[in-house]
């Protein structure tokens, strides 16, 4: 327990870093992923091609390389210094852009569960593609993909630790930081694990209550 109580300041900051990365990356991933998912089923060929290209390049790239691009290659290119809040911003962007591909594919699978008749009926009453998606298809699609979507977000939560290698303080940095303060690093890792298990349990609980509230009556 001394590992925690003697370094409360650092644990607090690290936990805050992880939470910021998770919610920041999650928001980017959800918005971008929904747009890309919709693009992949849109009637416009260019939109479909761009969506497919994006998913197939980013999803096929290891997250560490995506981080390299955002944390080391991009800042000098656009003339920004990646430190402090900027480093956090780039890390959120990397996580968001990477996770968005998984969100997009999950949403696309959800869209496929919505009977074609729904979209056809919506089109028949004169709704545009945007209206068909936002009013009819996506609300149904989201409800049917809550379990796989939560898996994507649980993976995102654990992926936040990669940011530790790119100058963003989070729970993944704790081993380096605390071993330098003379703590037993195996003990540190066990505590980090306990915190992650607790956070994932929280997400699983959120998943269950969402599932209950949003069950599709068929």
């Amino acid at each position, binding site marked *: 327990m001394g590992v925690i109580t003697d370094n409360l300041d650092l644990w607090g900051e690290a936990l805050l870093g992880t939470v910021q990365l998770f919610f920041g990356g999650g928001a980017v991933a959800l918005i971008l992923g929904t747009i890309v998912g919709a693009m992949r089923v849109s009637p416009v060929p260019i939109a479909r091609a761009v969506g497919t290209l994006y998913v197939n390049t980013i999803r096929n790239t290891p997250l560490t390389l995506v981080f390299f691009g955002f944390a080391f290659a991009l800042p000098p290119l656009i003339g920004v210094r990646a*430190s402090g809040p900027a480093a956090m911003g780039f890390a959120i962007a990397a996580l968001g852009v990477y996770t968005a591909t998984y969100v997009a594919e999950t949403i696309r699978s959800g869209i496929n569960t919505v009977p074609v008749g729904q979209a056809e009926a919506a089109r028949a009453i004169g709704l545009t593609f945007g209206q068909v998606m936002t009013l009819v298809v996506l609300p149904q699609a989201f409800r049917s993909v809550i379990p796989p979507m939560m898996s994507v977000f649980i993976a995102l939560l654990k992926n936040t630790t990669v940011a530790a290698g790119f100058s963003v303080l989070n729970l993944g*940095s704790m081993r380096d930081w605390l071993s330098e303060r003379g703590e037993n690093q195996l003990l540190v890792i066990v505590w980090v694990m306990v915190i992650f298990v607790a956070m994932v349990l929280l997400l699983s609980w959120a998943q269950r209550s969402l599932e209950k509230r949003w069950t599709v009556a068929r």
Partner: protein
Amino acid sequence: MRKSRMIVGAGIGLTALLALTACNSGSPTDPGTGGGDAGGDEALWEVATDVELEGSPTFDRMTEAGEVVIGVKADQPGLGYEDPVTGERTGFDVDIARWIAASLGFSEEQITFETIPSANREQEIINGNIDYYVGTYSMTPARDEVIDFAGPYFITGQGLLVAADDDSINGPEDLQGKVTCSVTGSTPLQRIREEYSGEVTERQTYSECVEQLKAGQVDAITTDEAILAGYVALEPEELKLAGEPFSEERYGVGIADGDTVLQDHINTLFTEGGDVWTALYEKYLEPAGVKATQPTIE
């Protein structure tokens, strides 16, 4: 089918591009000091014969294995450096390690060097993966609880490395509004973060920090002055030390907890080998502008 193949091809290309840029943040190509040290060292010390260390579990393990495994650093020119091309290891710390091995009766061929990052040092010693560690290893009370230290064999302090044409930083107080680079979680980085203002950024190695400094991504690099001086010696036109050291770091040899026999042996070696120490100091650190005298053993 053809279309998706093209897309996959583009993805592979992009990945390769990213990987190449990553490799580029490379280490210095010239070790600066050292070179041909195999010939020079033979004059400094001889491999001892018939060494007996009664009651030292570490020594028993070395003798049984017929080799000594030493943990060192590989990216600190002048202290612990491994040439990426030839694989040759040079530096003050590395030669101190060789000297200790020789005093225990192990020749150069019986030494295995392991590059161990800072964060893993205690655990590698506790697990017995290395026999001892020589690599800018500060003797701190917290570390002393889990391992033992022999020495100190060198005393330095935290310093600042800046671009040669930068006159705005002359001490840690000037770091306000500046970005300082150091190795992930390292003590110098934590000190800057807690005791001084200004932003910090972390990299895996000091060489990466140097690259960032030259690219203008950071304003200063902080760690022990002896480490920084090695980089200045490599590129005196581009880099310089700023201000005076603002902490005291005592470098020791990390050994297994409770092995007082080995600890005494190394301490005696340091106490009696003042001329070897001076020769190594003059070879590696004095040319880099590090001022120091041999510390007394505690």
